[in-house]
């Protein structure tokens, strides 16, 4: 209701200007900030886009930041605690295929974004209510609802970016969005524990109510994101009217029958992806308490070090992206990233060295892998199957994350951290095996995955001739 009024007011206020100038390029007719064709306005939109994802990334790792508190206040073991992550991943096993379809065909980008933001908000509120009412199943349900919104919101965010910045500053925008996501995660890691203690101080005691209220306060970031979604919808519609710009589309075409055409290298890339990410995200989910229990860190120091991966990823992603673009040789870069991650987990498992070393390595390799692995899909899949391939990759990644989250909790409860780390080492080593295989298969088939940037340039020229 309120939004509609706001929109109406917006229409009225911009009405007279438009009446005088139906062409978009009328300098000075609108202030730069309000003119959709001007950079200043696009920067405003960029800001909104970045904040759009902030809430969901902030709340995604709420359980990791409050692991001790969740386990104590809700009286659950690590296995049940990790279900909070598994429940986030389950809906996304399917939604990775559906997200693009829903945005393009059913809701449209604007309503799609608003609806997914609502899911994120409602999910977080249910999650918090589960704490207040001391019902762990309600918390799990909350994470499920949150998961429905979370990943699809990221797709919507990318679609907005493409629609506003295609052919202009698109790569920069993607980079900034990613950085903002990492900042959201980092702020969460370092803020939630402090917030919990403040709520505890004002309530006078710790307990499930304290936890619920802390999570509810954390949910404010989701409301903020929802407001951004509404504002973006309004601005996008306004731009459509003024610039006759088309509504953004993901352009994803998902055909599940394409799966049978997937080549061996693509399957190997999937294996690398799943085995790699399951050794990173569930580890971060359990990381805080690991640093407290094994290395004797304080709660705050443990939060800080657990967020190192995200902190490093924020500035390094664009740099590594540039590096991989300039040099090519993607498989070699992926190999470096996987080997470094393996080394980092080995350091965490078998030494008592300061974990800053291992976590820094993990942060660097994680950023490098993202930059080198994901573009490889485009080299081995024809363009019309690209949507299916990426959807499939994300889907099995989520499947892997859901299963491994549960497994990791169980291993930790029964066998301890050394075995948990061994399990992660085994996963990364499987990923390494797949990289080596990919290299060999690519070599044997004369594939283009490991071309240097110059070879790629030459290939492009020879094709266009």
């Amino acid at each position, binding site marked *: 209701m309120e939004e509609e009024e706001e929109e109406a007011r917006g229409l009225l206020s911009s009405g007279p200007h438009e009446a005088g100038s139906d062409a978009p390029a009328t300098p000075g007719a609108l202030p730069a900030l309000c003119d959709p064709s001007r950079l200043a306005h696009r920067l405003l939109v960029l800001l909104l886009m970045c904040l759009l994802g902030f809430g969901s990334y902030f709340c995604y790792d709420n359980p990791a930041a409050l692991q*001790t*508190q969740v386990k*104590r206040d809700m009286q659950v*073991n*690590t296995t049940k605690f990790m279900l909070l992550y598994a429940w986030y991943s389950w809906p996304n096993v399917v939604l990775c295929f559906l997200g693009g379809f829903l945005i393009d065909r059913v809701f449209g980008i604007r309503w799609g974004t608003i609806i997914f933001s609502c899911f994120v908000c409602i999910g977080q509120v249910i999650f918090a209510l589960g704490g207040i009412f001391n019902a762990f199943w309600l918390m799990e349900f909350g994470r499920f609802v949150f998961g429905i919104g979370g990943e699809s919101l990221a797709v919507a965010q990318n679609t907005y970016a493409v629609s506003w910045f295609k052919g202009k500053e698109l790569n920069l925008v993607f980079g900034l969005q990613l950085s903002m996501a990492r900042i959201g995660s980092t702020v969460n890691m370092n803020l939630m524990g402090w917030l*919990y*203690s403040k709520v*505890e101080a004002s309530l006078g*005691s*710790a307990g499930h109510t304290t936890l619920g209220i802390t999570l509810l306060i954390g949910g404010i970031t989701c409301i903020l994101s929802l407001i951004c979604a509404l504002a973006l919808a309004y601005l996008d519609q306004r731009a459509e009217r003024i610039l006759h710009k088309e509504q953004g589309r993901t352009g994803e075409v998902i055909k599940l029958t394409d799966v049978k055409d997937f080549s061996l290298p693509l399957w190997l890339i999937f294996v690398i992806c799943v085995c790699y990410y399951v050794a990173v995200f569930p580890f971060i989910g359990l990381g805080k*308490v690991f640093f407290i*229990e*094994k*290395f*004797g860190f304080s*709660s705050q120091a443990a939060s800080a070090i657990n967020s190192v991966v995200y902190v490093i990823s924020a500035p390094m992603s664009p740099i590594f992206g540039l590096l991989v673009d300039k040099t090519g040789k993607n498989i070699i870069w992926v190999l470096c990233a996987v080997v470094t991650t393996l080394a980092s987990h080995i350091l965490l*498992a*078998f*030494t*008592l*060295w*300061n974990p800053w070393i291992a976590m820094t390595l993990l942060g660097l390799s994680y950023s490098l892998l993202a930059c080198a692995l994901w573009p490889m899909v485009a080299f081995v899949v024809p363009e019309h199957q690209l949507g299916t391939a990426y959807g499939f990759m994300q889907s099995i990644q989520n499947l892997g994350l859901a299963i491994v989250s549960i497994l990791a909790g169980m291993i*930790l*409860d*029964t*066998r*301890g*951290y*050394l*075995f948990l780390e*061994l399990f992660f*080492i*085994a996963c990364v*080593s499987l990923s*390494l*095996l797949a990289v*080596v*295989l990919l*290299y*060999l298969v690519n*070599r*044997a088939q*004369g594939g283009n995955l490991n071309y240097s940037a110059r070879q790629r340039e030459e*290939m492009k020229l*020879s094709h266009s001739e």
Partner: protein
Amino acid sequence: MYSCEEPRWGWGRCAPNPILFLSLLSVAPFGLLGEETRQVSLEVIPNQMGPPQNLLHIRAVGTNSTLHYVWSSLGPPAVLLVATNTPNSALTVNWSRLLSPEPDGGLMILPKDSIQFSSALVFTRLFEFDSINTSDAAAKPPGKSYPPYSLADFSWNNITDSLDPATLSATFRGHPNHDPTGAFANGSLAFRVQAFSRSGRPAQPPRLLHTMDTCQLEVALVGASPRGNRSLFGLEVATLGQGPDCPSMQEQHSINDEYTPAIFQLDQLLWGSFPSGFVQWRPVAFSQKQGSRESALPCQVSPLFPTLVYLLPQSPIVRAFFGAQNNCCAFNLTFGDSTGPGYWDQHYLSWSMLLGVGTPPVDALSPLVLGIMAVALGAPGLMLLAGGLFLLLGPKRYSEYQSIN
């Protein structure tokens, strides 16, 4: 006090010496003077003079040495550790003297000159205090304390009833003589003592590695009504030895928590020079019988402090063996904190320690861990090697792009 907090590479051994390193290499650690097998026996020494008394003698006989552990609940529960360099040393008890007010010399290990090492532990008091419900770890020390239970004023069951020669174990189960509040009406404090005829680990956490040279004590408080809603319990332990010096307390940090999930620390009490005695325990207690990770409570230990013998409840067997002494050392153990699980959950608390003479057992990485690492690192390496050789030596194939160029 000797402690090493410094994280370091590998198994976190503090002050490594060649003997410790040897035992790290071999899974079965060497005992006193290199004994590899011992004949371990357990017997209750009967009191021919009057009512039965709890005096348990564990004897571990090797080819050229004997270890004696004498447990008793005369007075507060106490244990004597004596190591001798002959397989023929024996315990002699003069009951009339031992039960008299001046028990000096009432209990001896003969021949006296064969004794290489001797020491004693006395469990003097059970503390109880209220915890403040806060997650702020800095809010220590714990809240108000209730009057402690003096374990000298407990009455103990007859251990002959709980003696199990098959598992080499016996349990001292006691409750206060004077219990006006009825706190122990349905509860008891139990000291379960176990010796071992081979090295291995118990099934229940903390799964300390034991050898034939060692003896395990499990202290369990079961069913006693706490005096506060969130009562924490503690145990006061006194040590006596041949000399006036306190043993040293050592905290070892290791990378290995496969036997006690999420516990990376091992606390040790070490007496002087080799051959010497040791007490080791994981800083963890459990609030449930199955000892899962959810029921794990932290166990804090105070630094050792010198004190005067007469300030603490006296143990006749310790007095009988060592004679009148003025000085001893004591330390306190505290189980649990205000956050997390506690005794209040199920009115159950258990904590274990290992007591021995010689080199303390050291955890090595299990074959399973080494196997997983070998496969995890070996498989990609071999694949790289095999693939590399195949590409180098195998049939040359040119890609179509190269052939065009």
